[in-house]
């Protein structure tokens, strides 16, 4: 048995450290870990609750809007602030644009270079060429679409900024709604750019993933996770009670309703001191870099004591649209299908906007209150928990998809989904770990989001979804 340490694992937002135990070429053990901790939740204590919408976006530059959505939902839940129909639609459009940006960038810039030969140019060179199966003309097509994909994700941020002000770290989504009333001028430009992106998805992205799945058919059997999925819902309908992507949990082959009360967090292998297992709303833990047996900043969130997978595949599994498997290629295909689906939804939402109607509801911040904001982020279930005392944030907690996916084992020894996917893999390329990179990137990890700390004694019963 030999152990290899990989840091940085590249083409990921912020680095990931992997420790892999090999027996010859087979992975026998895997410990993924976060190596960056900034402590955002501590920074939020004592702040004006409205600030959370902007400050928490700074956790992550690639999925900033998801944090903006979860933070506003949590404060609106705590203070019972209603949203107008226009606000719901505009939030969906702004958030949708950020999801398009993320998926386009992830597929072309981060994921595909594992499968085609990159342009002969730094920073792509030195290039990896292990197990490339595309013909020269197919490779040339991927190179061309690699650059075109970069243009499209730029356009998706352009789309976001039409109503969001700027990107990353948009300004448009604020507690109480959104800030820009829709008008024909902006809708017209929004529609035009959205159409360009949708055309690219239909004419290039879908055929590209089709070719990829054909050439790398064996990856439908590689990198399988636990097969349990969770989604907390995404993109509210106009009633703000149901979602376009429904919440739900798939456990041991059956669909169950989603219940946030069943979420617990385990810190047996994390650099935190405190009770080993606790609910997000009652945990108290402090950073403890010296803790024996700990190796990561990530805690281990569990649903009904099980490790669960999430993200585009999880959402489509729960909604029943895609239930093929939980492999590398399933995750990639589900992400591309979702890109098309969201772009199509966005066209509908744009049609439903009513110029002249309000997008913002004036409100007073409540003196006390507790709230949960849950929304699917690009890569999975994101939750913000807030407790307000004297119109200030008394405690704030964030559980990110990265924590779920890359979690260390819990006290019972259950591995997190990514570690689970990697263990058992036969690695032919022990220089660049191509197989492992493919598995990890199929999850679209983001380690800026890994930092997490819980310090609260509030009790929360209600929550606001998507």
């Amino acid at each position, binding site marked *: 048995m030999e152990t290899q340490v990989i840091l940085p694992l590249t083409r990921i937002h912020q*680095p990931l450290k992997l420790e892999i135990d090999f027996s010859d070429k087979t992975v026998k053990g895997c410990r993924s870990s976060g*190596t*960056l901790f900034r402590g*955002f939740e501590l920074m939020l204590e004592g702040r004006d609750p409205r600030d959370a919408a902007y400050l928490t976006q700074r956790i992550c530059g690639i999925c900033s809007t998801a944090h903006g959505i979860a933070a506003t939902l949590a404060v609106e839940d705590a203070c019972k602030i209603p949203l107008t129909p226009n606000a719901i639609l505009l939030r969906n459009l702004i958030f949708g644009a950020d999801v398009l940006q993320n998926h386009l960038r992830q597929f072309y810039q981060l994921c595909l270079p594992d499968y085609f030969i990159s342009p002969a140019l730094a920073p792509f060179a030195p290039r990896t060429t292990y197990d490339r199966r595309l013909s020269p003309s197919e490779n040339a097509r991927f190179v061309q679409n690699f650059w075109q994909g970069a243009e499209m994700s730029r356009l998706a941020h352009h789309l976001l900024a039409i109503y969001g002000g700027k990107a990353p770290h948009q300004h448009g989504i604020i507690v109480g709604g*959104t*800030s820009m009333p829709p008008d024909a001028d902006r809708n017209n430009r929004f529609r035009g750019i959205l159409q360009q992106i949708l055309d690219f998805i239909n004419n290039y992205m879908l055929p590209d993933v089709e070719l990829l799945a054909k050439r790398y058919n064996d990856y439908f059997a590689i990198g399988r996770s636990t097969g349990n999925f969770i989604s907390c819902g995404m993109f509210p309908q106009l009633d703000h009670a149901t979602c376009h992507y429904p919440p739900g949990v798939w456990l041991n082959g059956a669909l169950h309703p989603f219940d946030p009360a069943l979420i617990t967090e385990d810190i047996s292998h994390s650099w935190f001191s405190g009770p080993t297992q606790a609910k997000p709303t009652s945990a108290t833990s402090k950073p403890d870099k010296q803790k024996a047996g700990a190796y990561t900043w990530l805690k281990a969130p569990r649903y009904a004591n099980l490790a669960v997978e999430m993200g585009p595949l999880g959402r489509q599994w729960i909604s029943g649209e895609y239930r093929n498997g939980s492999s590398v290629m399933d995750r990639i295909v589900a992400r591309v299908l979702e890109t098309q689906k969201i772009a199509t939804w966005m066209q509908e939402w744009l049609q439903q906007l009513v110029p002249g109607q309000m997008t913002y509801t004036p409100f007073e911040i409540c003196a006390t209150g507790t709230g949960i904001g849950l929304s699917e982020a690009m890569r999975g279930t994101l939750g913000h928990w807030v407790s307000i005392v004297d119109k200030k944030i008394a405690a704030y907690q964030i559980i990110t998809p990265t924590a779920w996916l890359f979690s260390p084992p819990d006290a019972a020894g259950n591995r997190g989904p990514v570690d689970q996917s990697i263990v058992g893999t036969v690695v032919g390329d022990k220089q660049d770990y191509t197989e492992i990179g493919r598995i990890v990137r199929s999850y679209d990890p983001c380690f800026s989001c890994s930092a997490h700390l819980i310090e609260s004694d509030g009790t929360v019963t209600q929550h606001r979804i998507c």
Partner: protein
Amino acid sequence: MDLCVKSALSVSLAEVLLLDLHSGIAAQTTKRPIVLWVELGSCTGDSISLDNSLSPNLKDLLHNVIDLRYHWLLMNVEGERALSVLRRTAQENSGEFILVVEGSVMLADGGTWDYAGYSDGALLTGVNLLHELASQAKHIVAIGTCASFGGPSATKPNPSHSVGVQAVLDRLVINTPGCPCHPDWFIGTLYHLINYGIPELDTYNRPKLFYGRLIHDQCQRRTYFEHGIFAQHPGEPWCMYAVGCRGPRTYADCPNREWNNTDNWPVGCNTPCIGCVEPGFPEVAMPFFQRYPDVKLPGFTTSMDTAALGIGVASLGGIGVHLGANVLSRRLRKNLVETTLPLNPPAPRSLAQQQSIQAPEETVRRHKKRPSRVRRSLRP
């Protein structure tokens, strides 16, 4: 005949010059400056923002402007191989490459809250990697507010003990702050470095080309400020000063440059500027939506009341002097006394603005009351 020779000569000279020019350009294209991009305590937002550049776009930037040898969000190789690319390039090109740093330098527990690599059986902290590379770089550019001043990573209580790059280095660091940094600011700064050397910098080492003027002085809604038409909450199309706008103390060109190649930016989006390019952001800007408290900066003291009403106009510089000058020149007085609305509002830039220029009733009423107070302020 003489004329012919002259013209022939001039033609050939022009041709020669043109050739030189071409070969100069060609040489520049083939010898792009080497750039090494390291990411420390960051959200990766500046890397994403870089990819959002329109001109040059990512492809053009990498082919024709810089030779980006290390950027872990883009490169193929992993782990020790990636790190060796970084170190070898730095050693082989010592004194020639531009080091770009994204994210704050994290000092807690000896820097161990941020690891940037693993080699020779040991983890390498971000701060140690920075020191190793900084001594070899020709220029160091900090991208984003975290790398420039600590930024959001250093928000109180600053658990990770984050600071900006300049705080740990004894040599010049050119700061291109912003949360995220606008791609034009960063690439424009690189362009200056490559073609004309170090740009003119302000006291915080920011290029004056991009960070030289107040947002407030360039704002499309400046007229509303001068006439005291303030939004009461975010989402209203007026001056955002009363809901926390930091434009009056923020040096950047967002109102002119705007974001993501649209016609939008935070104030254009009916929300306050939160001053993301300034040292101390976000700490000094929070609460983001609260009216700016009385500002006490050297030679600069004002509050919204004095600014809006033009009474008791304060000390030196800044808004105080500006309004004082306006009051003295009777521009403000004329507008407020003789009309209830600005005489010449700025031309509408979109349909939304055109509709919104019809002021709501209460704004009109508020203005009708104002003249007497202005007159009172002008009494000796």
